[in-house]
């Protein structure tokens, strides 16, 4: 099921299917859309290797019951997709959910937009950026089977 190096060491620990579709109604380029868990709560998320951090949909973030005291102090204006978005930075647990094999947990930097950003957010799902989120994950894509393989690049204690 999972990929392995010639030494036998597994490349990946788990594999999941994905949906290959545009992230929003206004886009035409398909993206990898996975179902993940953020702090244990299920959500759809787009693999965005050109992006940074885990970016939560503002409405999904409301399900997480986060308190500003847990965040880096103050509202930060962050440049996302060419636009300054206001929100707070947290350390959250993201779980990649395996159809086969083992789930993988990532302690990630997460950007949670302020609730008022929901008005302009549209149908963009959560985003899994490379820097600050997937940067320590091995992953591979089988486009024929629409399988996303994943595992830790190194086992963290």
């Amino acid at each position: 099921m999972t990929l392995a190096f010639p030494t036998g060491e597994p490349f990946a620990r788990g594999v999941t299917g994905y949906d290959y579709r545009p992230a929003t109604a206004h886009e035409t380029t398909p993206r990898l859309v996975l179902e993940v868990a953020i702090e244990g709560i299920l959500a759809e998320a787009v693999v965005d290797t050109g992006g940074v951090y885990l970016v939560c949909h503002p409405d999904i973030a409301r399900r997480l019951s986060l308190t500003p005291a847990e965040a880096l102090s103050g509202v930060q204006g962050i440049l996302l997709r060419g636009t300054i978005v206001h929100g707070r930075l947290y350390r959250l647990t993201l779980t990649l959910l395996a159809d086969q094999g083992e789930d993988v947990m990532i302690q990630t930097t997460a950007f949670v937009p302020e609730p008022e950003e929901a008005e302009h957010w549209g149908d963009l799902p959560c985003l899994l950026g490379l820097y600050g989120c997937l940067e320590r994950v091995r992953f591979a894509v089988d486009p024929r089977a629409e399988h996303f393989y994943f595992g830790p690049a190194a086992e963290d204690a």
Partner: protein
Amino acid sequence: MDLNGLPADVAQFVDDALASGKYPSAEALVAAALQVLQQQEEEDRGTPRPAAASEAGSVPASPDDYLQALAVALRTGEFGRARQLALAGAARYPVHAELTKAARVLAPPTVTRAPHPHTANIPANRAWLKAHRHAYAGQWVALRDGHFLAAAPSFDALAAQVDATPDVLMTKLPA
């Protein structure tokens, strides 16, 4: 230096400035004016001024300086610099609560195997979404283990209809 032929209002400004003693000579006044003009042109071309460049590369002098530089780095999309500032600031001021929190939040991610497997039926959710995505385009939908629970035009309306336990997927389908 002769400054003849200037417009009357500029000539008056020069006379007043020299009379005030702020500038020791006409040459000094002209040099100061040209420096202002040079800075303005550099800003128009996007060339960083020497002072700004040294600020970007300098070591912050206090915890507040670290936090301010960190906020600027985030706002300008310098995410790598933001992490460096957070980690360096926390190392230098290890008892400063906000800097240690910044270092924890912005530290490189850690990746581990989950202690317990999840129990949700993710493939069933995926199959439902593929089959019904167009029928519910533009709506929020709630699913549990591939079973449709509810649909609504907004998140709030959906949340009012379902018991949103963690195993319920709530997602908005593109229009």
